């Protein structure tokens, strides 16, 4: 295969790849090889992957080609490569959750998400880097070192699904899977200039997902455009009897909604509390323009107050650590993972304490201690109990808002991508990255981030967050697809077409962007 053809293949959307494979214009093996080449060329700088499964990926691609040759029907994503967050169990690849305590672990079973992707003919390229146990907003909490933002390698790609976001942004894969507990899909998508979706809680299975905070953890798609995200959303969703919190309801028609791309008559609420002081001026400027754009497309804009959203961050940092302190008790050095200090003289209890001290990083330790504190008798009512009541009040704010409007919008993050190291040992500063995304996690409803331009002060991507009621996931796609189409008409192409560095389309190299996303020209 020529280099030019290989480069061209990595720039295709997932929908284009699937169509080309189905039509026999290109083989799944060729597509996979092209992406493996791209990974080999750029991942020493991006560091999106913890493990690349080249042989297994090529074998999976060959199986798709064989099925096509045999005349079997192929699904809508057959032959499309995907980067899988290293929190989903995989029998043929290590699964570490970014932690030393699971280094080299080979799970004995596949997650439901993994199984559904394989069944759909999706080609798993490897496992992506993440903050340890998904606790963080930058991938700096990975035991294996940070991933880098392809727009500017000195900056974070967001987190915790930062490896997945970086892989898609740098065209190492057209699709990736992430998980969202406090914003871990939408926040990295926003700071990398791609699309990321947190489905309704229970809409995507948690079976085989290494647990962080079980009442919040939600798997979801990352992609370079809205339609691709919808195709992946549909492929992974649906009831799973192995997850007792899985919703037994039809999957919302997300692909149809992405194709509809129409907001005429839709009522859009701007959340008063998610903006203003503490937000980067360029983020607010692009967000304001996106709202004007929605109005120009026929949406009806109203301002909506959700007064308890200002308490979402503190409530989250009690609920998530509490659940994590319980979930991570399973890492006891007995049945799998790391064991240290087993010298014949130390007790199981001592070995457990030494192993956990050696195997967990600082943020995981902080959250386990915080959660243990919040759940202790004497503090339970004042902290965990109160946080659960705040969660109810946040849900009621959403319910009241969705009586007036069809969707809510806000910036996805208060700032653009920050520098690696800037917030690494300042937990509260790091936590603020999830300020706008946490309310939807606490309520369990659906939310998405779609690029809405570049902040003029630093030339980095800004995300527009769209929030919809539980099981109203299709509304997200209607709005995001309409915004994406209108902005691409203005810009003359996708946002990544204006990117610098490794976020630039493959083949264009280091050429600097000349488009209009930095300021909407008319």
């Amino acid at each position, binding site marked *: 295969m020529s280099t030019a053809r290989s480069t061209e293949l990595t720039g295709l959307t997932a929908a284009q790849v699937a169509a080309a494979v189905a039509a026999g214009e290109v083989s799944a093996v060729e597509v996979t090889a092209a992406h493996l080449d791209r990974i080999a060329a750029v991942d020493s700088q991006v560091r999106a992957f913890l493990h690349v499964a080249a042989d297994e990926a090529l074998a999976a691609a060959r199986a798709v080609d064989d099925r096509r040759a045999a005349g079997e029907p192929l699904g809508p994503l057959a032959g499309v490569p995907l980067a899988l967050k290293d929190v989903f169990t995989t029998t043929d690849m290590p699964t570490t959750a970014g932690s030393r305590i699971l280094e080299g672990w080979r799970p004995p079973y596949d997650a439901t998400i993994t199984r559904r992707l394989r069944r759909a003919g999706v080609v798993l390229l490897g496992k992506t880097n993440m903050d340890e146990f998904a606790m963080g907003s930058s991938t700096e909490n990975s035991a294996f070192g940070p991933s880098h933002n392809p727009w500017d390698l000195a900056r974070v790609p967001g987190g915790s699904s930062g490896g997945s976001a970086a892989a898609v942004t740098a065209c190492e894969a057209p699709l990736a899977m992430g998980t969202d507990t406090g914003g871990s899909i939408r926040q990295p998508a926003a700071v990398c200039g791609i699309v990321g979706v947190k489905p309704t809680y229970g809409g995507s299975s948690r079976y085989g997902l290494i647990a962080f905070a079980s009442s919040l953890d939600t798997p979801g798609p990352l992609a370079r455009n809205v339609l691709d995200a919808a195709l992946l959303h549909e492929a992974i969703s649906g009831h799973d009897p192995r997850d007792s919190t899985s919703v037994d309801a039809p999957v919302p028609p997300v692909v149809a909604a992405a194709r509809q791309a129409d907001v005429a008559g839709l009522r859009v609420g701007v959340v008063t509390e998610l903006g203003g002081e503490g937000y980067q001026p360029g983020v607010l400027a692009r967000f304001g323009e996106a709202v004007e754009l929605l109005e120009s497309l026929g949406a009806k804009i109203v301002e909506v107050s959700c007064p308890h959203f200002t308490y979402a961050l503190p409530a989250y940092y009690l609920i998530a650590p509490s659940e994590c302190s319980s979930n991570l008790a399973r890492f006891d050095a007995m049945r799998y993972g790391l064991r240290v200090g087993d010298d014949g003289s130390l007790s199981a209890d001592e070995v457990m304490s030494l192993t956990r*001290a050696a195997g967990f990083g600082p943020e995981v330790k902080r959250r386990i*201690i915080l959660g243990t*504190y919040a759940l202790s008798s004497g503090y339970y009512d004042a902290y965990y109990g109160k946080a659960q009541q705040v969660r109810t009040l946040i849900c009621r704010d959403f319910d009241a808002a969705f009586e007036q409007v069809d969707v809510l919008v806000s910036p996805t993050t208060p700032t653009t991508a920050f520098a690696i190291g800037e917030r690494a040992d300042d*937990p509260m500063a790091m936590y603020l990255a999830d300020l706008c995304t946490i309310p939807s996690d606490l309520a369990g409803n659906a939310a998405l981030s779609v690029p809405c331009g570049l902040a003029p002060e630093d030339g980095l991507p800004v995300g527009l967050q769209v929030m919809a009621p539980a099981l109203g996931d299709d509304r997200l796609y209607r709005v995001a697809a309409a915004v994406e189409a209108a902005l691409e008409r203005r810009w003359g192409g996708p946002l990544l077409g204006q990117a610098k560095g490794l976020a630039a389309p493959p083949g264009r190299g280091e050429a600097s962007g000349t488009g209009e996303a930095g300021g909407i020209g008319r």
Partner: protein
Amino acid sequence: MPITRDEVAHLARLSRLALSEAELDHFAGQLDVILTAVARVQEVAADGIPPMTHAVPVVNVFRDDVVVPSLPREVVLSQAPAAEQGRFRVPRILAED
């Protein structure tokens, strides 16, 4: 309501984390800042507000009691830190005295 270094040491013992003296010093300060910030939930008047534990109100999810194959023993034990005679080998669980 500040959290003391002694309290952090106690919580670390409860959580089975053998933290170093330097970690205890470092975390005590950071946890105090975090706890002060999250204590804001106490400002909300929430008398009579029910606690929310879960986003989806599902209760008692049952399935048919059908036997399915277990994971193969050798596959599971291959990932254990130590195995012996087809079982997990663990450090001693009882004290000498």
